[in-house]
């Protein structure tokens, strides 16, 4: 019974899973399709709710990886065998024979261009939450020049059947509020508006962050989805929404608009599910064996899930799930002889 395990995806879930595998004495292989490890975490500056540094967090995840074999810029081409012995062919022509596979492929960020009415990539001062995080890291972005009025649009590409994503991405509300506060730190004179449909402050300290956003930073909250964005003669952004709490249409001219892009399924989920002979749900994320009791297991033997590959999750949830995944995989393999 081989102790080799394949981890698909080098994001937080994959890294944590690999670490746990190592601790339990397994040999983990990480296959990462991009050119570096870290996934979306690498794009972030600080993490909600206690604004812990993303890079430090990533370093901690990467540290134990050094002696684990990682294949970058590579994907799986074919998988043969089932039940505790798979031979996997990678795009770099390496073949691995492993006893089980952990799918930690995560999620993709919604392409803001698809919400054409918001004009991302068309209006100069419309950016995404990712662009903003990048600005927080690099402190430079030619679209952000001392803005006086800033808007945040929640649920861009989430809870929106028109762009084929019905799910809530879970993290955007609190991220928006985190970023709103951070932006206010940098531009204390600015007026900041959040356009939300619901504020889903479900996690520990999230509500506190919300309260701080109100009372300390004076962020203005407008309940209503932005309907359309356009440029006025000075290149400022004219934003329209309904202020649903007063049931009146509302218009405001802004210098910067931040789109909170949601978590969507990866385009290659379909092909991976075919290779591994597992299923994807209606939302395009992978289907688990049992959503409550076996949420880390795939419905074909030896296949496991960790992280956002089975739907939007926060980082702590992802890390915890990676641990749980390895444990249930360990239990599974111990039964095989």
């Amino acid at each position, binding site marked *: 019974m081989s102790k080799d395990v394949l981890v698909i995806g080098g994001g937080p879930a994959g890294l944590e899973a690999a670490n746990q595998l190592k601790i339990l004495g397994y040999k983990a292989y990480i296959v990462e399709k991009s050119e570096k490890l870290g996934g979306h975490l690498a794009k972030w500056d600080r993490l909600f709710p206690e604004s812990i540094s993303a890079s430090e967090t990533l370093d901690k995840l990467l540290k134990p990886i050094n002696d684990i074999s990682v294949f970058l810029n590579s994907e799986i081409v074919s998988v043969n065998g089932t039940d505790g012995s798979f031979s996997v062919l990678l795009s770099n022509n390496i073949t691995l024979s492993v006893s089980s596979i952990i799918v930690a492929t995560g999620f993709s960020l919604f392409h803001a*261009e698809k919400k054409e*009415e918001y004009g991302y990539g*068309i209006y100069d001062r419309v950016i995404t939450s990712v662009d903003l995080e990048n600005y927080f890291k690099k402190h430079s972005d030619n679209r952000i020049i001392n803005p006086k009025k800033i808007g945040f649009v929640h649920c861009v590409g989430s809870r929106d059947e028109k762009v084929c994503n019905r799910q809530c991405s879970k993290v955007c509300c609190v991220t928006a509020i985190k970023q709103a506060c951070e932006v206010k730190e940098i531009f204390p004179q600015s007026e900041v508006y959040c356009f939300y449909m619901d504020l889903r402050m479900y996690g520990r300290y999230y509500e506190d962050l919300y309260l701080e956003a109100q009372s300390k930073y004076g962020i203005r909250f407008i309940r209503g989805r932005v309907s359309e964005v*356009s*440029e006025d003669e000075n*290149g400022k952004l004219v934003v329209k929404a309904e202020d649903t709490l007063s049931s009146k249409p509302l218009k405001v001219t802004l210098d910067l608009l931040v789109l909170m892009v949601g978590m969507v399924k990866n385009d290659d989920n379909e092909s991976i599910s075919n290779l591994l002979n597992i299923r994807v749900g209606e939302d395009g994320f992978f289907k688990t064996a049992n959503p409550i009791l076996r949420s880390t297991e795939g419905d074909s033997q030896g296949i496991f899930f960790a992280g956002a590959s089975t739907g939007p999750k926060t980082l702590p949830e992802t890390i915890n799930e990676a641990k749980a995944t390895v444990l249930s995989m360990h239990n599974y393999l111990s039964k095989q002889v």
Partner: protein
Amino acid sequence: MIVNGKQKIWSEYQKEIPDDHYFYVRSCIRQNFFPASEKTFLDIVRNKLNLDFFETEHHTTCGGIAYHSDTIPQETLMTIVARQFALMTESGYKNYVASCITSFGIYTETLETWQHFPEFEEKIRENLWKATKREFNKPEYLAHASDVIYKLRDKIAARAKHRLINKFTGEPLRVVEHIGCHYSKMFPSKGVGGAEYPYVLTGMIEAWGGEIIDYPERRHCCGFGFRQYLVQANRGYSLSNTHKKFESMQPFKPDMIITNCPGCPYFLDRWQYVIAEMEGKTYGENSQGIPVFTYEEVAGLVLGYDPWDLGLQVHQTDVEPLLDKMGIEYNKADKYKI
């Protein structure tokens, strides 16, 4: 404004428009509003570009106005549409082109409905047979007349006598494009350039030398809105819509407006007069209005037709300022010839 961003979107919304052999149907209200536009269209495609556009005096209204004014049910509407298709089939055409945006919308809506509810189509075929003993094939290609001009824009540009250039400054004319709501708002994939940033008119303007300006209320309805205009009690809303658009476009100092819908040019033109009378406010240079045109009229001007043959004298907002900018010769007296 990042132009290649728009181009990216345009590239995603390209619809197939046949080059030739169309069954052409006119619009009810354009006959009265801008009668010369359809005449010009046919003259351009038939005589200037030698293409095959067939039309028959037997076609009727598409029923759109009645439908959108809630006076006839969808089933009746579809039967009328089916009859038009029957006429096309009988005269051996496969490409259907409508002069009216509302009709275009109605036809698209009908075809889409039939696609999702085939049983509905069957019922309509039945109705039509009972009523007229006619049968029909669905058109292979459905186009709006502005799609055709868009397709031919470069051919027209090649034959241009005038370009959309301000001869006094040498600058491109600043053009506001207004798309009829029923062109692509309901079915974005059915319009050139989609719903948010339609390209059909922009393409013509670019080809003919003008410069398109985008303004906050660009997407806004012209104000016709059927019942909004037709019922006098609501007419204030119709007017307010148009007013909102003009307030929003004024800072961009447009030289002209180009439209692809029967109602829009009418209301953008007439309401400017009403606002001037009611509020004493005008939106063009030296307290004149902003001239409003149909795309056929603009094409006509570019190809060197006589303004008065294009029926520009029936516009309520004077077009002379634009003609002067384009350097078009015209005889003042002829404006009032019968």
